[in-house]
């Protein structure tokens, strides 16, 4: 019996010839990630194990991106504990404010994660790196602590669901729309405990940035990981950032899938997820008139160069609606700089939008862009749960950056076609 790409990666890291879904394996980890909210708890737990040193200071990444630059004194204390630990343990991949980015934009950009690797992170969107053909999954702080001590983690080998996307994407339709549409079809627990493998001609035609967006939101369907087989697009991206010798795995033709879904993306419209669940999706033509108070463009889901460029294309020469606050958050300092060099920051500022350095703050109602009672926001982020961006009676609608930008201009959820 053949194996899926997920099974092959786990087998190699468990030092076995093969693994089957449902088996429990101990796997070596290539990278362990934490942020300023989850790492301090992991550091406490790490101390309790009695370990003096982390298993490998070059295989741990610590990113202060959630409440940094420090939101308040308590956040400053949390960030300080992460910083002190990084210095004590000589952790090389610690990224200070000014040199950092949103973790899931930053790690791929820096070439710290790649095809065939096993990556665990104390952040649910760690599954983003599956876009590179890695096995990447989110865990909690105690799992992060154990992995920092042992260099390995326990995993149940997941069953794999295959998602085949055929056809050609229309203008203004991106990876975000494919994944929102998929979550709308299968529901927020539709892939619970499983791997989501994305494939088909429409995936092969996607940019790396759109692929990251898709893998990023696998967790919103309950999945353990999302994954895309590496191809030339993947390898072009990887070779520009790393000279590591990665393991390239592919699913066997006779690999077993627990379910196979096929989508024809030709003619698919941009999607909008209504409050308060990423599964409440509708095509943009079925949205109706929904006035908004805020538009957020950025995050680990849609803060990459492709996203910033498409938002600027929509906003160029136009003005943000007088009743709307539009916030743009490039995913990393490098993306921010590139946006400056291409004149995109100028486009946004002239349009009346605010542009900030990278932070997760607005996505989780942490800081910058918190909503008041009754306010509505269109956002390129990944979650629209109750109270996600502020007051429990506020509402978040999820969409791609072209839709968010057009909505910022028109003051209601809209397509760029209407401009």
């Amino acid at each position, binding site marked *: 019996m053949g194996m899926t790409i997920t099974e092959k990666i786990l087998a190699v890291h468990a030092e076995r010839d093969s693994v089957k879904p449902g088996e*429990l394996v101990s796997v070596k980890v290539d990278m362990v990630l934490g942020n300023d909210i989850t790492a301090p708890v992991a550091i406490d737990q790490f101390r309790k*194990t*009695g370990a003096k040193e982390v298993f490998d200071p070059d295989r741990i990444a610590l990113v202060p991106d959630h409440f940094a630059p420090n939101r308040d004194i308590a956040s400053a204390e949390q960030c300080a504990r992460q910083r002190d630990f990084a210095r004590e343990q000589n952790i090389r991949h610690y990224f200070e404010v000014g040199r950092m980015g949103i973790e899931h934009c930053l790690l791929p950009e820096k070439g710290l994660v790649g095809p065939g690797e096993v990556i665990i992170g104390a952040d649910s969107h760690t599954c983003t790196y599956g876009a590179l053909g890695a096995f990447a999954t989110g865990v*909690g702080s105690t799992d992060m602590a154990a992995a920092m*001590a042992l260099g390995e983690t326990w995993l149940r080998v997941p069953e794999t669901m295959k998602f085949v996307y055929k056809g050609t994407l229309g203008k203004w339709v991106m990876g975000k729309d494919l994944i929102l549409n998929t979550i709308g079809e299968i529901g927020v*627990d539709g892939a619970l405990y499983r791997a989501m493998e994305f494939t088909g001609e429409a995936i092969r035609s996607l940019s790396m940035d759109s692929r990251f967006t898709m893998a990023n939101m696998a967790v919103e369907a309950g999945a353990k990981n999302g994954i895309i087989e590496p191809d030339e697009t993947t390898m072009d991206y990887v070779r520009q950032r790393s000279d590591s010798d990665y393991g390239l795995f592919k699913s066997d033709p006779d690999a077993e899938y627990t379910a196979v879904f096929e989508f024809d993306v030709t003619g698919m419209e941009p999607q909008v997820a209504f409050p308060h669940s990423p599964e409440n999706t509708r095509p943009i033509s079925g949205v109706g008139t929904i006035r908004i108070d805020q538009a957020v463009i950025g995050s680990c889901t849609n803060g990459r160069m492709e996203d910033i460029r498409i938002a600027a294309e929509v906003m160029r020469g136009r003005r943000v609606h007088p009743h709307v606050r539009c916030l743009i958050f490039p995913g990393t300092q490098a993306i921010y700089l590139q946006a400056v060099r291409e004149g995109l920051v100028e486009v946004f500022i002239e349009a009346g939008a605010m542009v900030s350095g990278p932070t997760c703050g607005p996505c*989780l109602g942490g800081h910058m862009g918190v909503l008041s009672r009754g306010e509505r926001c269109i956002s390129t982020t990944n979650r629209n749960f109750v109270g996600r961006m502020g007051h*429990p009676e506020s509402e978040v609608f999820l969409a791609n950056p072209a839709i968010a930008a057009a909505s910022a201009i028109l003051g209601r959820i809209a397509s760029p076609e209407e401009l």
Partner: protein
Amino acid sequence: MAFRGTVWKFGDNVDTDVIIPARYLNSSDPAHLARHCMEDADPGFAPRVKPGDIVVGGKNFGCGSSREHAPMAIRAVGISCVIAESFARIFYRNSINIGLPVLEAPEAARDAQPGDTLEVDVDQGAIRNVTQRKEYRSASYPEFVQEIIRAGGLIEYVKTRLIKEGRADRNE
């Protein structure tokens, strides 16, 4: 481990932002987390919950963020265990790792009503709804989970292993 407590019932897809809103994650102090547990779903929950009470959820309980602060908050507010139709995987793992019992028991979760009294034997996977006079079995923990529980949690498991490998002192 056996518990008797009153049911606090919630629906499907209870997410980590509802369990402990991100705005409070500038601290991981259990007392601070307990004060805000379930605040956005039921502001009366944290002030009124009694030690030993039981949270019952629907499908996909604990979906969303990887924040361990979510099971920490539930434990810190005094809840003895969580019963649900199904759990989101990171929440399930985190709960086991920090010693919050979580039982997957779809029928028991569907039948339970707010205010019912439940008796739960975690080791046997037995749930008795005292109010409705009904009995249920929960899915048994996978072997690796039992191994972690026997070790006294993941940290104890790792500690034992590090001592064996000579990488940590016995007296730590």
